[in-house]
C-alpha cells in the first residue's frame, strides 16, 4: 500500500535522501554507516587516530580528548556564521529602539541614501528604510523562529515517532510525510493564505509551519529507525519503559545535532517563504517584515524609478542571514558526519607529508608507486 519497507535494512531511497537544503544531504547520508550514534557512544575512532595512520605520527596526535572531537571544531565557517546571525539578531533587538517610526511619512517622496538624515534613504511614500529594516528584522526573525518551532514539533512527531514505533504507525505517519514532501509547499501556502482577508503574523507563521516539516521528518525518521535497534534502546524497552519516555530520554538526545540542523533549516525556509508570500501580497497585514518591504517596493515601482536602495537592502539581509544560518548548519553537519570533517584534513596532511618528504629529497616513495 504505502511506499515503505518495514525491514531493518535501509531502504536506499530513504536513507540517502537529498532535500533542497544541501545541509541535510550529509545528515541523511550518515544513516548508512551509523556513525553519529557510534560517535555519541564514544566508540568512534577520532580524527586524531585517522591522521595518525595517514602520517605515521601516532604519538603526536593521540592525546586529543574525545570531548573535543565531538564539539564543533572552531572552524572559520562556524565563527563567521555565528557572527553574522548574532549581529542580525542584535540588530533586530536593539536597533528598533533608536530608529524613526517605520510607518512615519513625515517626509514626502523618495529620497536617496543619506539625504536629510535618512541613513538608507526613504521609500516613495517617505518611510525611513533603515527604520523599516530594523523593525522588519524583528518581524522576519519572529516568523522564522515560530515556524522553526512548529516544524520541529511536526517533524519530531512524524519523523522520530514513525521511525521508532515502526509497523503501521510508521506506514501511516510516513505516508503523510511523503505526501507533504512532494506537494509543492508554496502554492499550498498561497492557497491557504489567499482565503483570509486579514492575516496576523501568527497565521502566516502557522501556514508556513504546516507546509515545511516534511523534509526534516524524513531525515529524522531514518535516523530514529537506525537507533531503535541499538542495545541501550532495546534494554530500556525490555525493562518496561514507555515509548514516550524512550523517545524523550534515549532517542531524542542522540539526535540533537540533527534536530538542531533541521531547526535552522526550517528557519531559513520560513524567512524565504515569508518573503515570497509577502512579495505576492499575502504576507501579514499591518506588520513590517523584509518580505513586506519588497512587496511595497514592487507596488511603488522601485525598479522603474531606479530606487535600488529600496529593494536591495531587505533581500540582501535575507540572503546574508540565510547564509549565516547555513554556515552554522555546515558546522553541525561536520559534527554529525565526521567524514566531511576528516577527509579534507586527511588529504591536506597527506599532501603536506609528501611535500616535506619531497623537500628532504626522498622521492623514492613516489618512484616506487
Amino acid at each position, binding site marked *: 500500500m504505502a511506499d515503505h519497507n518495514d525491514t531493518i535494512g535501509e531502504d536506499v531511497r530513504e536513507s540517502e*535522501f537529498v532535500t*533542497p537544503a544541501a545541509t541535510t544531504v550529509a545528515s541523511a547520508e550518515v544513516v548508512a554507516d551509523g556513525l553519529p550514534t557510534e560517535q555519541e557512544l564514544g566508540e568512534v575512532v577520532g580524527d586524531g587516530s585517522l591522521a595518525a595512520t595517514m602520517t605515521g605520527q601516532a604519538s603526536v596526535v593521540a592525546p586529543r580528548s574525545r570531548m573535543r572531537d565531538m564539539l564543533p571544531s572552531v572552524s572559520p565557517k562556524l565563527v563567521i556564521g555565528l557572527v553574522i546571525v548574532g549581529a542580525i539578531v542584535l540588530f533586530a533587538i536593539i536597533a528598533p529602539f533608536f530608529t524613526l517610526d517605520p510607518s512615519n511619512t513625515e517626509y514626502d517622496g523618495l529620497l536617496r541614501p543619506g539625504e536629510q538624515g535618512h541613513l538608507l534613504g526613504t521609500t516613495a511614500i517617505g518611510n525611513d528604510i533603515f527604520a523599516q529594516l530594523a523593525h522588519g528584522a524583528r518581524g522576519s526573525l519572529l516568523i522564522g523562529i515560530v515556524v522553526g518551532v512548529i516544524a520541529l514539533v511536526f517533524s519530531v512527531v512524524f519523523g522520530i515517532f514513525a521511525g521508532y514505533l515502526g509497523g503501521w504507525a510508521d506506514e501511516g505517519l510516513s505516508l503523510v510525510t511523503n505526501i507533504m514532501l512532494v506537494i509543492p*509547499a508554496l502554492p499550498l501556502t498561497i492557497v491557504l493564505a489567499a482565503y483570509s482577508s486579514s492575516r496576523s503574523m501568527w497565521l502566516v507563521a502557522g501556514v508556513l509551519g504546516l507546509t515545511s516539516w516534511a523534509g526534516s521528518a524524513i531525515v529524522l525518521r531514518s535516523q530514529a529507525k537506525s537507533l531503535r535497534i541499538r542495545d541501550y534502546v532495546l534494554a530500556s524497552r525490555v525493562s518496561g519503559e514507555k515509548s514516550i519516555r524512550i523517545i524523550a530520554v534515549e532517542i531524542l538526545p542522540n539526535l540533537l545535532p540533527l534536530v538542531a540542523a533541521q531547526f535552522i533549516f526550517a528557519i531559513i525556509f520560513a524567512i524565504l517563504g515569508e518573503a515570497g508570500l509577502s512579495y505576492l501580497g499575502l504576507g501579514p497585514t499591518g506588520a513590517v517584515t523584509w518580505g513586506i518591504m519588497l512587496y511595497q517596493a514592487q507596488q511603488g515601482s522601485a525598479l522603474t524609478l531606479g530606487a535600488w536602495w529600496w529593494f536591495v537592502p531587505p533581500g540582501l539581509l535575507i540572503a546574508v542571514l540565510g547564509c549565516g544560518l547555513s554556515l552554522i548548519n555546515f558546522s553541525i553537519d561536520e559534527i554529525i558526519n565526521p567524514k566531511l570533517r576528516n577527509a579534507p584534513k586527511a588529504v591536506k596532511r597527506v599532501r603536506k607529508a609528501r611535500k616535506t618528504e619531497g623537500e628532504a629529497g626522498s622521492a623514492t616513495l613516489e618512484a616506487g608507486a
Partner: protein
Amino acid sequence: MKYYGRRVAFYAITLWAAISLNFFIPRMLPGDPADILLAKLARNGDVSPAVVQNVKLILGGSDESLWTQYWTYIKNLFHGDLGISVSKFPEPVWDLIRDALPWTICLVGIATILSFAIGIAGGAWIGWKRGTAWDAFIPFTTLLQSIPYFWLALLLVYFVGMQMGWAPVAWGWDVQTYDHPELSWPSIVDVFQHAVLPATTIILSSVGGWLVGMRNMMVSTLSEDYIVTAEAKGLRPRRVLWTYAVRNAALPSFAGFGVTLAFVVSGSLVMEQVFSYPGVGKLMITAVQNADYTLMQGVFLLTTVTVLAANFVMDIIYGFIDPRTRHHG
C-alpha cells in the same frame, strides 16, 4: 516489480490527497469564497444557474451532501472541468492553464536540468579536490542558496536588464512584434532571449543545493574502502573519479531530484511575477490578486499534478539506475 507497484500506489494516494485538499480547503477555511466569487460574477453580467452550480461545486456552499459534492467534483475533474475564471470571464480555467503550463514546464524544466548538470559536475570536481582551495567554493554557494528567487530576479531585471540592457526583462516574447510566438526563426530566438534572465535566476538559485549535496557525497564516497582499493590497484585517477566515485556519489542526487523540483517550482512561481512571465505562476498570482478562487484552485491542482508526474518519472528512472531500490523496496 514490487518497487514499481509501491510507487504507483503511493502516487495514486498522493494524487487523491492533492485532489481532496483542493476540495476541502475552500470549504474548511473561514469566509465564504463561493459567495464572494458569485457576487463578482454577477457584476460581469447575468450568471446562469449552471455556473452557480459549478462554482458551488468547486468552492462549497451547495445544498447537497458533502459526499455527493465530492463525487461530482471528482467526476468533473476527470472530464477536465475546473470551473470558470472570474478575472478572465468567461474563459474556462482549464483553457487558461493549458495556455500557461507549457511556458513554465519548458522554463523550469530546462533550467532545472541545466542546474542539475552544472551542480553535479561542479560538486564532483570540488569533492574530488577536497582539502584544496576549491573548498572555499562551498560557503559561497550557501549565499546563492539563501537568496530569495524573486529578489535575485529583481536584481537581474534592474542591473542586467535595465541598466545594461543585455536581455529583455518582461513577458515571454516580444509582444510588440508578435501577437503570439510563431514557428519562425526570429520568433524562436526572441522567445529564447526572453527566457535568459528567468532561467539564469533559477539556475543561480538552485545550483548551490546540487553542488553542496554532490560535494558532500563525493567526500564521503572517496573515503570508502573500495576507493582506496581502486587507488591501490594503480588505476588511473580519472577512472577512479568517474567509474568509482561519481557514479556512486550521484545516486542520492537523483533520488532527491523530485523533491527539489517541488522546491524549484515553488520558487519560480514567485519569480514569474517579477518577469511577468506568462506561465502558471503569473496566472496564479493574478488569480490571487483578483480573488479568482476557481482559477487559483485549478492552478494549484495542476501544478501539484505536474510535480507528481515529474516525481513519478524520476522514481521510475531511479529504480532503473539503482537496482538496490527495486530489491529493497
